[in-house]
C-alpha cells in the first residue's frame, strides 16, 4: 500500500506554472465554478492525463476554434456519450500498451490517466445510459460531474440536477407553479449502486479535500465517480465573487455534504464530518439560498413554505447519509 498522497499547495502551484495544462483565454463566465474544478482535477494528476469532455459549458468555452485552452490531449464528441468515448479510449490504451504499439516512437506516450467530464445535463439526464454502461463494464477512468444544477450552456434550463424551487427558464416562477416543483435526482446513489471502487463528492472551496479526492479517483482500480459542486453565477443569479462562498455554504448547510464511498463504505469528510459529530454546526438553508437570485421568490412571505420544504428535504437526505456513514 502506497503512502497517502497529501496535496501541498506550493507544489501544486509550481507544477501548474510549469505545465499550464489548462490555459487562460477560455471563455467560461467570470466567476465560473467549473474553471476551478478543471484546474483542481489537473492539479491532482499523478501522470499525464487524457481528457474526454461531454458537450457543455466547459467544452464550448475552452475550444472555440481556432483556439484551445488545453495543453493535455482533449476530445469532445457529443453530449450523451462522454463515458462511452472514455470506454473506447481506455480499451485502446489497454490494447496498444499490451501490444507494445508506439513503443519505439519517442513522439507518443501511452501511459496516461483518463478523465471524463460532464455537466449535470450530460450526467443526470442525457448521458446517464452511457455512464451506467461504462460503470458496469468497469472501465478505468475518472468520471467527474460538474454540477451547476441546470443546462447553463443552452441558457439555464432545468435538469435532473436542478434543486427544488429553483427558477430556470423552463421552470419559471409563474403564477401557479413557482420554480422547479421536483427535487434533485440522487445521482450519487445511482452511481454507487453500480458498486464501483470509488465515488465522492467535492466542493472546490475545500480544495485540499477536493484535490485529494481527485487523486484517489485517479488511483482507483476501476471506474471512479466524482460529483463536484459548481457554482454558476449566471444561472444562479449570484455575484461572481460569491462563487467559492456558495461552494462553502452548500456544504455547511448540508445541501451538498462532502463524503466518499470506498468500495461501498461511506465516509463523511471535513466539514460534513464535523457537522455529523456536532449537529449545531449545521447552518440553515436560508443562508445558502439567500445569495442566489434563482431562489429569491422563495423569500416572499407567501412562498416561505418552499424554504421549509427545501429544508425538510435537505434534512431527510442528510439523515439518510448519516445512517449510511454509520452515525
Amino acid at each position, binding site marked *: 500500500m502506497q503512502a497517502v498522497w497529501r496535496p501541498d499547495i506550493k507544489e501544486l502551484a509550481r507544477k501548474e506554472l510549469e505545465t499550464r495544462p489548462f490555459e487562460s483565454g477560455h471563455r467560461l463566465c*467570470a466567476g465560473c465554478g467549473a*474553471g476551478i474544478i478543471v484546474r483542481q482535477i489537473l492539479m491532482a494528476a499523478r501522470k499525464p492525463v487524457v481528457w474526454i469532455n461531454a458537450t457543455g459549458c466547459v467544452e464550448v468555452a*475552452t475550444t472555440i476554434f481556432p483556439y484551445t485552452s488545453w495543453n493535455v490531449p482533449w476530445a469532445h464528441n457529443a453530449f450523451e456519450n462522454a463515458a462511452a468515448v472514455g470506454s473506447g479510449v481506455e480499451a485502446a490504451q489497454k490494447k496498444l500498451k499490451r501490444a507494445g504499439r508506439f513503443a519505439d516512437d519517442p513522439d507518443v506516450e501511452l501511459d496516461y490517466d483518463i478523465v471524463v467530464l460532464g455537466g449535470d445535463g450530460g450526467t443526470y439526464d442525457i448521458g446517464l445510459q452511457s455512464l451506467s454502461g461504462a460503470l458496469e463494464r468497469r472501465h478505468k477512468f475518472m468520471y467527474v460531474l460538474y454540477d451547476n444544477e441546470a443546462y447553463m450552456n443552452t441558457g439555464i434550463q432545468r435538469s435532473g440536477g436542478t434543486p427544488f424551487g429553483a427558477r430556470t427558464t423552463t421552470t419559471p416562477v409563474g403564477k401557479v407553479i413557482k420554480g422547479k416543483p421536483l427535487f434533485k435526482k440522487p445521482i450519487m446513489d445511482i452511481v454507487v449502486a453500480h458498486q464501483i471502487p470509488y465515488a465522492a463528492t467535492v466542493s472546490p472551496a475545500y480544495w485540499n479535500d477536493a484535490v485529494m479526492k481527485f487523486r484517489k479517483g485517479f488511483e482507483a482500480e476501476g471506474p471512479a465517480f466524482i460529483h463536484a459542486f459548481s457554482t454558476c453565477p449566471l444561472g444562479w443569479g449570484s455575484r461572481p465573487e460569491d462563487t467559492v462562498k456558495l461552494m462553502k455554504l452548500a456544504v455547511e448547510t448540508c445541501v451538498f455534504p462532502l463524503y466518499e464511498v470506498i468500495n461501498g463504505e461511506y465516509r463523511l469528510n471535513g466539514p460534513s464530518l464535523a457537522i455529523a459529530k456536532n449537529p449545531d454546526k449545521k447552518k440553515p438553508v436560508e443562508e445558502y439560498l439567500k445569495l442566489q437570485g434563482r431562489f429569491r421568490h422563495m423569500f416572499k412571505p407567501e412562498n416561505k413554505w418552499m424554504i421549509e420544504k427545501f429544508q425538510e428535504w435537505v434534512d431527510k437526505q442528510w439523515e439518510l447519509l448519516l445512517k449510511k456513514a454509520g452515525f
Partner: protein
Amino acid sequence: MEVPVLGWKDLPMAAVPFVSSKAYDTGEWAVFQPKINPDKCVKCGLCWMYCPDSVYRWDGEGIPEPDLGHCKGCGICAEECPTKAIEMVRV
C-alpha cells in the same frame, strides 16, 4: 500574437484547433481587476487556487502575480483572500 485566418486548404485535418487560447485576450471583459497589497499578502496561494481562469502565476514562494491580460475580474480572489490583501480596482 497575430492569429491568421486560414482557408480550407491550409487548415489542419480533423478540425483540430491550431492556436492556444492564451492568444485570446479575456482581460477585456473585466470592469474591475485585482491589485495585491504586498504588505498584506501572506502568500497562502488561495487567490491562485480559486481562480477559474488560471490567471495567477505563482511559484509557491513569492507573491502570486495575476495576468491581467486574461483576468475577467470576477473578484473571487479578493473575496477569498484571508488577509484582504487584494483590492478590485476599476480598469
